[in-house]
């Protein structure tokens, strides 16, 4: 009687647990989302310049906590110069996100000094690849948005100014060094370096030593 009562009490809880657990296991999914608006640089980038791009929003669209990373890939439908992946540096290599949580990831654009001018177009892809399974096929998801910017043919406006400033600093250091040397010589201060005479022995042909 007691057993029946206990079963009667536990049965709904067990059934409810099973109903909750089974669909969750069956419907586990991996998913990712990214902002639909392109990441677009206002203005132009110049060779040799490092610029902060607008940050990109990504969301974990799956049912599990996932590690999401952002990479640059050629836009498969073509158009514009593809952006070399090394030009774009996400603020973090990857982010851990709970299901239905979103985050903004900062991006830096590093344009090399020898970058070709023109319009650049690529994908920024948020990728989630889940945990490796025991065997078989693992399934991943990616979501892409466009990355667009233009590179001007000339270096950044401040580029030559920075070169000028650096040259002036170098000149200043040389002048200061010259002034110090000149002052030392004029003051009659002498730094005397004496070399201590040391006689070393030499080995003879029998392996002995003599002075």
């Amino acid at each position, binding site marked *: 009687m007691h057993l029946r009562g206990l079963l009667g009490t536990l049965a709904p809880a067990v059934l409810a647990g099973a109903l909750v657990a089974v669909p969750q296991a069956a419907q586990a999914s991996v998913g990712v*989302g990214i902002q639909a608006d392109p990441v677009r640089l206002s203005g132009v980038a110049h060779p040799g310049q490092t610029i902060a791009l607008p940050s990109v929003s990504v969301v974990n669209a799956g049912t599990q906590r996932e590690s999401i990373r952002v990479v640059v890939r050629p836009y498969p439908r073509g158009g514009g110069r593809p952006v070399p992946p090394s030009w774009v540096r996400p603020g973090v290599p990857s982010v851990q996100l709970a299901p239905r949580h979103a985050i903004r990831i900062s991006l830096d654009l590093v344009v090399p000094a020898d970058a070709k001018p023109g319009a650049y177009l690529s994908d920024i892809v948020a990728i989630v690849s889940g945990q490796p399974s025991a065997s078989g096929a693992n399934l991943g998801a990616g979501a892409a948005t466009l990355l667009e910017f233009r590179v001007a043919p000339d270096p950044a406006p401040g580029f030559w100014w920075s070169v000028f400033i650096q040259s002036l600093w170098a*000149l200043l250091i040389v002048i200061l060094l010259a002034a110090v040397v000149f002052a030392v010589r004029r003051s009659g201060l002498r730094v005397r370096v004496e070399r201590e005479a040391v006689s070393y022995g030499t080995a003879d042909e029998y392996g002995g030593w003599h002075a």
Partner: protein
Amino acid sequence: MRSLLVIAAIVVGGFLVIHAGKGVAAKDPPPHGHSGSTAVSLNTMQTYRSITVSPTAVNCGHYKRGNYPNRSKGAMGFPWGTCQVGDRVKGKDPIKITYNGMQGYVYVHAGWAMPNGNNVGTPWHPCASAGHRAVACTGKKGMPGYNQYTVRNFSPESAVPTQLTGNNVCDVNFRPAGGCYASRGNSQREGLYLTGPSKIPGTDTAQSWTAWVIWTAEPQSIREPKS
């Protein structure tokens, strides 16, 4: 001597003037005034583009091919053993791909198959029996080489399975009509056929491998009309 020191002092002074000017802080914003406010809640359209794949991993079954003694019903044989996820003929398509958010396209590619655990194994690269030489299968008659494998996906929508490579391509199985175009809530069920390499190097100890297939939600081109 004195003249040199004077020149140096002038140069240092000049630099201090130039660089001190850069350090001037911005003015503080004006203080906020007193105001009344009310909160307004509203819903907006989803501004994300997302893709969801369920389940997260699938097991390959129905092992076939390979030559004695490298042939088994419980493991992939050699050369060119096959296994499948689902069954196109029987209409079993266990992988569900769901597109959401702003309209775009569904693309798909395969990744390297990697040995599981800490076992030693040469990664298998996805290859294509025909097409671009960079991803071509190097085995006999377009079959995978010793470090290659092929993946084909299928769906009820397609007449024949489509070979995947490491290049991201339009998933024609998602929506054959209209390319791989997708809009909010579109979903498709798909399955996979895998073919293994021609042989396993004697130095490999791995007996369990995991292949990767990744679906990507791609945006429309900037020249394509937005609806």
